[in-house]
């Protein structure tokens, strides 16, 4: 660096690096949330013989059946497939993966720790509604490891494709970043808004952040791990990796934020699979579910909702006072209905998600021999990530996530099953030599083609991570409101933060609260 960084530049740099995250943290600390994990803040009035038809046995539909059932409503759930849970889907021995054109049965060994959460897989500790229902429904939880710095980072463009430990990448990167920040602090006249004491504190943090030496220069760190020993004898520091080499990969942009926000610690998962949550709901409302009942028609009337569905080769009718609909919007548009044009336009507006996941059963837990227990390896190839299981530590086998397209999964979706598997084997081999022979029994889940879903989490805005336009907002409000006061669309599709169970649950609670308010306001 040949010229000092101006104070303005430095502050801009700080704002860019930490501003948004800091704002979010401050927001969640304002005490607006309930004091502890609690399933609901609902205070619903008694059903008084009212009935609800719930379309779809996804998480939000089950929540409505459970909560309304508690206060005496007569609820019926119509579920098109053979199972409830929608995108809360745990694949284990014998599970049917009903992808259209690629039906699979999972062949994992029949052991409790050999499972794969093909949809929802993480519960942040701040997602209180999810945690509250887990508590209420007796779903046992365990800590989930998301970021594990012992895992690998691999990019063909970096170091000739040699994988490096996450901890090496991030320690060195922090060191170099800290060196830049320290330079900015010392070479720039840092008057207001910092006092000398504040500047010294900040500089101290920068030095610790990057493990700088006494000259504020980064010369490597034991934080990156030992080249040898470190216990009985003095440890030997690993060789530094040049800054320029680390910059050869763009994975750093994901890595440096992987442990922040909603994917930061502490995350949790139900012991035995995410569908333990669904099991918990089904223990309460399982007798309300009508399986293999495929909705054909929704007619919203002034005094209720009429639904037709196909089951066992015949078309049946059911009527209820209210309807809660968690069927993906892009499937609802294919039903017979009497919705107004603007409602249909909003239903069509939500784009269906394309996320894709794949998993292998590993014949042995080869990652544990490399000191890896849980966490994620990052790869700059289409498989993108390998997740190592927390379940079953030190047992013989384990199930690993072999590929995860979290935005834009069509690359693998368009392949045949054989091509998908080969792609993951080839990608994984770059991190784990011999991978191909270490894994077996593949499963792939292309949400875009899953029967009765045809999409992963929907998205509203047309700009990735972009702000919502006024038009987006208007259409959202239209769909969130009950059509004719009778038909509620629910699920994470009716939230501003799709793909999280918390949004799904809060969407269901929003709808029930809204209906309750309307009922209380009704003249007796």
């Amino acid at each position, binding site marked *: 660096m040949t010229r000092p960084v101006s104070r303005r530049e430095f502050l801009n740099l700080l704002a860019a690096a930490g501003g948004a995250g800091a704002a979010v943290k401050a927001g969640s600390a304002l005490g607006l949330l309930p004091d502890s994990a609690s399933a609901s803040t609902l205070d619903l009035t008694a059903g008084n013989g009212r009935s609800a038809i719930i379309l779809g046995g996804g998480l939000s539909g089950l929540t409505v059946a459970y909560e309304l059932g508690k206060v005496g409503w007569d609820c019926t759930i119509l579920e098109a497939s053979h199972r409830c849970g929608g995108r809360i889907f745990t694949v284990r021995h014998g599970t049917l993966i009903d992808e259209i054109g690629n039906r699979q*049965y999972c062949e994992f060994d029949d052991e409790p720790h050999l499972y794969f959460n093909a949809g929802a897989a993480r519960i942040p500790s701040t997602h209180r509604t999810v945690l509250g229902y887990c508590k209420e429904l007796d779903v046992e939880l365990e800590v989930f490891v998301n970021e594990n710095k012992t895992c690998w980072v691999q990019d063909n463009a970096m170091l000739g494709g040699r994988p490096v430990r996450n901890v090496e990448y991030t320690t060195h990167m922090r060191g170099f970043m800290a060196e830049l920040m320290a330079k900015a602090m010392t070479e720039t006249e840092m008057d207001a808004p910092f006092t000398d004491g504040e500047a010294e504190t900040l500089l101290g943090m920068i030095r610790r952040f990057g493990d700088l030496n006494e000259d504020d220069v980064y010369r490597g760190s034991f934080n990156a791990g030992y080249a040898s020993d470190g216990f009985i004898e003095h440890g030997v520091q690993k060789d530094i990796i040049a800054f320029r080499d680390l910059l050869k990969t763009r994975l750093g942009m994901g890595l440096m934020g992987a442990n922040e926000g909603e994917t930061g610690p502490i995350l949790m998962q139900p012991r035995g699979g995410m569908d333990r949550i669904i099991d918990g709901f089904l223990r309460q409302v399982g007798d309300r579910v009508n399986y293999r009942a495929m909705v054909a028609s929704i007619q919203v009337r002034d005094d209720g909702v009429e639904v037709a569905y196909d089951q066992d080769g015949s078309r049946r009718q059911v009527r209820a006072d209210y309807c809660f609909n968690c069927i993906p919007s892009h499937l609802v548009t*294919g039903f017979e209905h009497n919705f107004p044009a603007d409602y249909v336009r909003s239903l069509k507006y939500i784009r269906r998600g394309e996320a894709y996941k794949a998993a292998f059963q590993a014949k042995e837990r080869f990652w544990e021999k490399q000191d890896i227990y849980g966490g994620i390896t990052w790869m700059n190839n289409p498989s993108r990530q390998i997740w190592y299981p927390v379940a079953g530590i030190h047992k013989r086998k384990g199930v690993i996530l072999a590929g995860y397209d979290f935005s834009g999964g069509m690359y693998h979706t368009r392949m045949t099953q054989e091509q998908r598997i080969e792609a993951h084997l080839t990608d994984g081999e770059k991190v784990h030599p011999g991978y191909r022979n270490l894994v077996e029994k593949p499963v792939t889940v292309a949400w875009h083609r899953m029967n009765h879903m045809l999409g992963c989490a929907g998205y509203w805005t047309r700009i990735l991570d972009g702000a919502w336009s006024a038009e987006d907002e208007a259409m959202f409000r239209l769909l969130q409101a009950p059509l004719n006061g009778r038909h509620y669309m629910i699920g994470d599709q009716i939230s501003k933060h799709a793909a999280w169970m918390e949004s799904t649950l809060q969407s269901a609670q929003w709808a029930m609260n809204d209906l309750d308010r309307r009922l209380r306001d009704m003249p007796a």
Partner: protein
Amino acid sequence: MNPRAEASDRLMKRTWILTTFLISIAAGAVAAAEQEPLDDRYCVTCHGTDGRGNEGVQAPRLAGMEPWYLRRQLENYRAGIRGAHPDDIEGLAMQPMAAKLTDESIQDIIEWIGNWNYVPAEDTISGDLEAGRALYQSCATCHGADAEGNEALGAPALAGQNDWYMVTQLRNFLAGYRGVHPQDVYGAQMRVMTTSLSGENDINDVIAYINSL
């Protein structure tokens, strides 16, 4: 595609047994704990209630489609003659489903579709009807003056099909996503015919005209 006069209550009167390929498919699966009854009747997940078409997933109307045209397309998809081009987004979703079909299940599906209730498609495209009428004259040779189709010429009915689907297909023919496979004889003919259309306006106009028939 002439609207069917039959009322919806005749829908699904036929009970259908799928013993034959139930056995053949289940034999390929592992001895699994969760064995679902299997068949190949997936159509309405994408194509909507009674195969009315679903714009939400860009799946066209099947109800009312001629049996001979359904068979040709299912066989083309199965053989990779249609739905193999990497930019044919919807075709790529259809192809793997069709690839699993046996002759028996194709026959079953065609008969099943024949029992579906037909309701007129909703118009979603507007355009210049006069311009569309002029453009349609070359289409009429094969597809008929009322877009009623002509089996002898291998040309399906267009009237009653979802207009957004026909727009997509015209674009696909023009771009070479459809009708380029050497074995797609009818598709190749269609592709030649679409070259008379110059751009989106022409496509909208001709589809709007078909809507008016």
